[in-house]
């Protein structure tokens, strides 16, 4: 398992569930129901301020574990041959205030070379 923090673009359903994502120039689709939880942060170390009324996202962050598969390439060579293109399990974190997504962890053995 690796720890990352790169930006990811995520398309969500109307209910707020991730559906598709674009990461490192490639498109992925979810191939299983995602799991969501909230995980505590060491906010007293990681932050310098905690004023009253600061809003959500100070004490914990929202994490989605998604299983994705790269979309069938259209006019571009896939990074891997189709026979080895298996699903990836990624942990994504959604920043509470901005709604932006970052990649937190990659599970499973296979990782793209760019990482």
């Amino acid at each position, binding site marked *: 398992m690796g720890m990352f923090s790169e930006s990811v673009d995520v398309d969500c359903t109307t209910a707020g569930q991730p559906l598709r994502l674009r990461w490192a120039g490639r498109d992925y689709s979810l191939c299983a129901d995602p799991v969501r939880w909230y995980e505590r942060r060491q906010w*007293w170390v990681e932050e310098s*301020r905690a*004023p*009253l009324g600061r809003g959500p996202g*100070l004490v914990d962050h929202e994490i989605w574990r998604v299983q994705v598969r790269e979309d069938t390439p259209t006019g571009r060579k896939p990074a891997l041959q189709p026979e080895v293109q298996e699903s990836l399990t990624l942990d994504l974190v959604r920043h509470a205030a901005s709604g932006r997504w970052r990649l937190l962890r990659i599970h499973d053995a296979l990782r793209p070379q760019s990482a």
Partner: protein
Amino acid sequence: MTFTHLHVSTAFSAHYGVSWPDELAQAAVSEGATALACTDRDGLYGTVKHLKACMSAGIEPIVGVDLAVFDDDGDHRTQVSGRVVVLAHGHNNGAGYRALCRLVSDAHARTSGKAGGTIPVAVTRAELASRVLDPTTLKPVLTVLLGPDSDVGRAMGGRRYLRPRTLFKRWIDAMPPRSLVAEVVSQLSVPGQPMSTAQAVRMLRLAEEHNIPAILSNAVRYCLEDGAATADVLDSARTLKSLPELSAEPVLAPNGQAWLKPPALMRELAKEIISAAGYGTADLKQILAQTEALADRCRMDPVTDMGWKQPVVPEASVLRIDQEPFLELRQRCEAGIGRRFPGISGKAEVQMRQRLGHELKIIGDLGFSSYFLTVAEVSRMILDMGVRAAARGSGASSLVNYLIDISQVNPLQHDLIFERFLSGDRATLPDIDIDVESAERHNVYRRIFDRFGPERVTLMSMQNGYRARGAVRDAGMALGMDTDDVGQIAKQLWRFSARNFREALVEKPELREFAGRVEQRYYSENQQLDMLVDLTERLDRLPRHISMHPCGVILGDATLLDRTPVQPSGLGLPMSQFDKHDMDPMGMLKLDVLGVRMQSAMAFALREVIRIHPGKAEVVAAGRHPAGPDGRGPDYIAPDGSIDLNAVPLDDEPTFELIRSTHTLGCFQIESPGQRELIGKMAPRDFNDLIIDISLFRPGPMKSDMVRPFLEYRHGFAPEVYPHPDLKSVLEETHGVTVFHEQILKTFNIMTDCGLARADEFRRALGNETEEWKVEKFFRENAKEYPQEVVDKVWGTLKAFGSFGFCKAHGAAFAVPTYQSAWLKTHHPEAFLAGLWEHDPGMYPKRLLVAEARRLGIPILPLDINRSQSEYRVERVEDGPDRGKLGIRLSLNGIFGLSGAELKRLVAGQPYDSLADLRARARITKPSIRRLAQLGAFDSLHRGSGGAANRADLIQHLQNLQNATSSRKGTEVVEGQLSLPLGDVELRNIKPGLPEPTLVDSVRAELDLMAVDASGHLMESHRPLLDRLGVTTADKLLTLRNGTEVLVAGVRVATQTPPMRGGRRVVFISIDDGTGCVDSVFFHEAQEQAGPLLFGTRLLLIRGTTRRTGPRGISLSASMAWDLSQLETLPFPGSEPAGPDVPHPLDGISRNLAITGLGG
């Protein structure tokens, strides 16, 4: 869709909940809720506030509690298996609420009520099971929720897979049918962890499997996600561990999702849990429906279930009344007329009877007769105990109270208005407060419990919330900061609310250094300080714990304990979980029995007067009392010399002379620096002046500059002005200035003819943003007979003074002990000061009152092992220059290190003829013997032994003995000395050699061990230094012109920051230099100059200019201050070097509070 939250902790779950009931109710209603629960931990602390909040939000309240349950398998006294939520069923005439109250009381019954008790607040499962059923119908009236924090929930994470099921079945077996539900909670924590969906699923399946209904909750701790950080800090404060420690264990909440989620999100949660469990839509509907069904069963009717606003008083039979209470009250008033108004007739009688009829009609209409009879009963009981007591507050406005001996003030004489106390328009029980001797307060409480029965009485509690100092300490601890660093910061926080911490950093000079550190956030420590400020602000005002209210006693009928849960107080007597704000809503009769130290001091003084003087003649001579009708002294002095203080006429001229002299240290209400200044300006001539003086010295009048015009009119510097001739009769006594509430009432009544009862309602609405405009409208519409400018002017006055003017009845009630204490100080100063030292009633450190005795020339008699008692004593001096005078002998009580048991044995064994005798019979520890020697307690014994050594030699001898053996008690005896009247061989044989201790040494020992400088004033040794600095002493100030620049120096005795006009802070610092007090005022500029010295220094050198405040008053407007102990910083004239420091009594003494009155 609506969703009802059934598990919600409010801020009144101390060190756990974050949000106030109001916020929660408002949030719930804005999301369409129709009901909301309040389930505080360990008690119903927030329940009444929750009721109020729900009623004003227009939703129905649900009440319950979150309680720990003892482990059936563990040690019953200490081991807890988990926590459950218990909800009361509603609409059953209080059966559910009653059971809930009793259950909560059960949970506290075994605790000690003292801090650090080892027995947790918890119930056994058996208690829970028995309280669930109503004793008469045998139907369940409580529902128990087994959630993630129950033993079942806690076992979910364990390795024993079957354990949760076993525990769940045990609950089913133990509890009556239909009293259990499973509480399913997912706070979306990491899958598989506590509060995760996975665990919620397991709970749901267990319920399904055993056919127990499951409901959904979110175990709420805060209103919004923002509260999560505050909850973390509260967890830290509760467990006394820092956040880094807690997160390592890990025992912090898994995340920050315990908020009052709106219905849509709760539904999403339910969906997620149901689908994770593999269940379908029907199950989703079911869990939500079951939640609402339980909510419906638990909706409370505040009136029929909880007795909302229905006053309950003790049963007539308990009051030993066999007739209608109103008739009884009327008869007792009649009986009182003969006693209070002997020989009244004519117009006076008509007036009095009219007033009595008026009051009785209102009391009768409100049905409050039993209330008055109850208070009268308590009052009579206290007087029968021989305890000094005085009613205070608006109760003094009532003639009924005067006639049935509740109050000692004649309302007709002082023109007090009954409606200020009680009126037909106000159906809440009025407040009657009784001041008793502080030393007797607990005995009075116990007597009330005995008299009315423990089922009808409980003490009231009070909520203690975070203030700046406590908040910064706990915030610092949460961040894992160094305790001393945080302590340093906390020390500088001086009376402002923690919520304005960041603002204060900018404004307050004493925080400047700290603010600087916060600003430069270039390294991590300062980042932490920034966080410290934020967390401190978050803690502001949150309740920390409840404690016994200083005076509230709740009286009810035999059902009282069905209506309030109780828990042991530190005193051992039970205490209600409700505070003063809960009394009216819950229809509870609260009596304020306040312990007043001044009453104890005066009672002590009166006893000393009798003890010292054989009879009336001696008392009359000693006190220079008038000759009286028969030439043998006044009637208020009995033949045995006892003085009936309440019978002393209120017009004693020497007493008023003393008051006008402003030497009023030790006198009730008029000893503070500000009051001494006001007294000096006002020069009171009679008792009514005292009432006015006390009423003027309040934040409101001071703030709004009422005092200056009043004094100008009073002294004739400016002509009195009345807005209209009609108001002259109302405002004449205060020279046209509106001071009293009573005057506001009369003004309303005269100008609008609204009646006094309505007038009081109007007065209450003044200053209230939403009500005041209505009053103005009424006033302007109904005062039509008066010209516009009169109406404008009067309205301006009413608006400005109405909300904070003073009730004259309060003033009158206060003025009585004020006058009495001044009378005692005038006529029997030795006994009075002894009483003050003994009971320490004032605002100053005791050492200042010792200095006052020295200033008055009263001999302060040293500690003596055979003459000193466990109390201060007045004693006739037998020899020396003061021979024949009355002096005050220091007490053995309060010496550092001398235990209560030692003190008792020591006094019981007096007199002692030798140290050996003392060791043998009093069994005093060696360190205590040495300390007694340091204080000179053996000096006369030592002199009597004929030895040549001095006190220093003796101390050294005792120190050697102490070092030689490690035994604690000094029971071993030098052979041949036991109880033989040989004099003290030991003392006689001590080898002389050391120099006699200096005065500085002795005073330092006294300050260190007694916090009092008895042998000499502690500033004495600074005198040469002060002379070089050119310091002026307090007694010389009065001879100086106004505006003279002077230097003064002394030890701090008082520090005050009263609210001021214009909102800018002013700091008053009083210092004592041995010749008297210097009161100095630091305005903004001077505060900037003085900075950290303002609140941090014991010995001060102050430069300032004199301000004449009256014929006998002078104070100082400070411009600069120095710490007298930092020689090198002092402004010596010319280029004179500081010179070597000399020893001072305060060197090396760390106790602050007792010496300067300033903690830290």
